[in-house]
Every structure is written in C-alpha cells, then in structure tokens.
C-alpha cells in the first residue's frame, strides 16, 4: 500500500527540466571563475563583470590544466626583418614556433602558419603592459569549443607550449614557444597580447604587481580597500572598480580587504574585495624575486 501512494505521488511529479543545456555548461564555467575553492589555485575572477579575458582564460586553460597559460619571452630583435613574423624550426617531427615580431599584422602570422599547412589560428589581443607578449595556447579554437557547448579544451600532444621555468609576472612559467607536430591537421589557437590603443579595454589584463603595472612589486594583497585605492591614485590610476566573488560591489566599505587586482584598461583598475582577509594570499614578494 505504501507503493500505491508512492506511485500516486510519482504520477504528479513535475517535469525534470531540459537537463544539461549549453547554458548550464556556461554556468559551470562561470561558477568556477567566480570564486576559488579553498584548495584551488587562485586565478579566477567574479562573474557579472564584462571581462572577456576571464572567459578566454577559462576557455584556454580548461579544467585540468589542459592547456598552458603563461608569459612569453620574446626572442631578441623586434621586427627582425620583414621576411617572417614567426621563427619556425623543425625539431624531431615538430615545428617549433616562436613569435619574432610582436607587432606584425595578424594576417602575416596566419599566412605563415598556413604556409606550413597548419590550421592553427592566431589572435592578437589588446593587453596591459605586463601582458604584452603573453601567449595562450589551446588545442582547439574558441568557435569549435563553443559549438560543442563546452569551454573545456582537451590537451593534445600535437600542440603544446614550450615553457621556461622563469616566472613571468603572475604566472609561474613563461612560454618561450609553441610546438606543433608536423602533419597535424587538427585545430588550435594561439592568443598573443599586443599593446592596447588609447582607451582600449584590455582583453589580457595585467596583474597590479606585475612589472610595468602601477603596483609593481607592491604587496597590495590583503590590504584594506581604502589603502589600495590611495596607492593606485598615487600612481595615476583614477578609475577603480570593485568586484566581490559573486557580484560587483560598487559600494564596498573602505575596510574590506583586497584579494586581487588587475588593470582592465589604461588608468582603470579592477579590485577583487571581500569583507575578510584572504586565507592564502599571493606572496607578492616571492613573485618579485
């Protein structure tokens, strides 16, 4: 008789909903970018901020460190000859690609990759001074990832970053090149930071304490909001926006703590603030060694 009552209840169950929709997958990405899990690495930012780079980072980084997100050491000689924007060498069945001319017309990069019979895309994006020259390597382009309804990009042995142990700003390693298997017919995308034009929003923002940024090597993490704003003003940054882990907090009290910060365009900083100090703050001094 219990079963009968249970069946009656089951018969009026409202529908279950549409399941895992593309929007649901997008929300998954947004959630993992909005607040760090206690054990997660800190490189995420709140949602609700129109900050394309955060999405780009998630897209490229994926969920299992599947792609490499690092800085970029430029080889010597900017614009070292009009012949090639990229330096491409063959090594053990792979192309080893290094950007020679950071300021080349994007079309030149594409043409040079295409001449190697590669379908790898390259994007050149406005970057904060410390992020100029940064590179993100992904085994899949954004359009493909979106079409599949996911931002998680699987790693591929066919296209990988070549890393140096040198620390680059916020990042723990520098990318010094991209290795692509000769004969690789799959997709891929390389994003490269270029200097921004006046007034242009960075899609590659720079960490406040990184070289070339207003608070280079200043230990601003876990200081009070008012103090960090004052420091920024002293360095000519007039516009400051405040974000919490879940939403923008334009009226955050001065006593809140700054957990992180980036320059989102020239003269405009974005601070991640919270009522409590960050339990595991980034060691700025260690990054500056």
């Amino acid at each position, binding site marked *: 008789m219990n079963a*009968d*009552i*249970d*069946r*009656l209840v089951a018969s009026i169950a*409202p529908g279950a*909903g549409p399941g895992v929709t593309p929007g*649901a997958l997008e929300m998954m990405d947004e959630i993992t970018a*909005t607040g760090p899990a206690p054990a997660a690495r800190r490189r995420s930012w709140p*949602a609700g901020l129109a900050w394309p780079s955060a999405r780009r980072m998630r897209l490229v980084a994926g969920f299992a460190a599947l792609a490499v997100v690092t800085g970029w050491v430029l080889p010597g000689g900017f614009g070292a000859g009009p012949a090639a924007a990229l330096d491409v060498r063959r090594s053990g069945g792979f192309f080893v690609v290094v950007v020679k001319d950071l300021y080349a017309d994007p079309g030149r990069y594409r043409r040079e990759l295409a001449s190697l019979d590669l379908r790898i895309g390259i994007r050149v994006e406005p970057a904060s001074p410390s992020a100029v020259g940064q590179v993100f390597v992904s085994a899949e382009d954004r359009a493909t990832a979106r079409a599949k309804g996911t931002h998680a990009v699987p790693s591929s042995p066919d296209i990988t970053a070549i890393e140096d142990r040198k620390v680059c700003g916020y990042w723990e390693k520098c990318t010094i090149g991209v290795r692509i298997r000769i004969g690789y017919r799959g997709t891929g995308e390389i994003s490269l930071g270029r200097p921004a034009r006046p007034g242009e929003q960075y899609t590659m923002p720079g960490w406040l304490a990184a070289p070339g940024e207003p608070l280079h090597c200043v230990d601003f993490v876990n200081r009070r909001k008012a103090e960090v704003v004052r420091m920024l003003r002293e360095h000519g940054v007039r516009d400051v926006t405040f974000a919490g882990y879940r939403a923008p907090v334009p009226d955050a009290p001065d006593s809140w703590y700054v957990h992180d910060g980036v320059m989102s365009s020239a003269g405009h900083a974005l601070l991640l603030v919270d009522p409590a100090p960050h339990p595991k703050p980034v060691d700025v001094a260690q990054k500056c060694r």
Partner: protein
Amino acid sequence: MGPPDPRQRFEEMYRANYADLLAYVRRRTGSPDDAVDVISETFTTAWRRIDEVPGDGQARLWLYGVARRALANHHRGEARRGALAVRLREELTAWDESRSPEDSGAIREAFRRLGPDDREVLALRSWEGLETAEIATVLGCSRGAVRLRLHRARKRLARELAVADLDVGRYGERALALLEGQG
C-alpha cells in the same frame, strides 16, 4: 600524482548531477527565474566547498541537501543577473512551453494541501526515487525518523485523497484499501 584538480572534480560532479539537481529544483520552484537562482546558488556553494563534497555517488545527496537550504533561504531580491541568467531562464521557459499543461487533478490538489515537510519526504521518495537511508542523508535525520515521517505523510495524503473523493478505478484498489484501513 596529487589529488585530483578541484576544477576537474567539480566538472565531473557537475556533469553527473546537474540534470538531477535541475529536476529537484525545478519541481520545487514556481518559475524559471527562481530555479536558475537556486541551482546557481547550489553549485556555487558546491564549488566553494568542493573539498567537502563526498565522492562514491554521494555527491547527489549532498547537493540535494544544499539545494534544500538554498530553497529555504531563497529571496527574490537575490536574483541572478546578467546575460547568462537570461539565457538559462529562456532555456527553462522554452522547455516549459514545449510541454502540454500539467493535469491539475485531485492527486495534485491533495498533495498541495499537505504541509511542506510531508511533501518533501514524499517527493524525495517518489520524484527523486530515493531510499530511506538516502532521504535521511538529505534531510539530516535518522532512518527511523524518515520511516516515521514517510508513514505519517502517506497517511495524511491518503486522507486528503479521500476528501477529494478520488476515482478508485483510476487510482487503484489498494490505495482505496489503504484509505479504508485508516478510516
């Protein structure tokens, strides 16, 4: 090898449980807006407390528990905003509109007249298909308490159905026997 990457763990948990959690939340909210808010809050909590989320197939029950609290604490003023929220609401609304209107028959009316605790324990059994021990995990009480609450809720529903003068042929002789036995 260290412990699994938290993001990877979260993604696996999210993909495995989202549909069930959406169903749970959708069945207990009156609008796509509320459903989006609550499911978003549930998984945001899970991400922030990823170290506490149990493995071994228990994540779903843990998430139901979080969703229960999110539903209880949900205020409309905290609505999720932004383009993604709009898109999710549109997805849910489109799904709702694609379905034929639900029957608002006697059983549904009788069920609505029950108290929220009765409805929840019956729904966990019949809508989510949980066993007694699993219900106990979600509600944070003992198995004995669940059995008692289920027993009482079934009895109360049976009484409400009797008041509604339900059609025996439609709902089964055994249900009628239950009603008579309690009469």
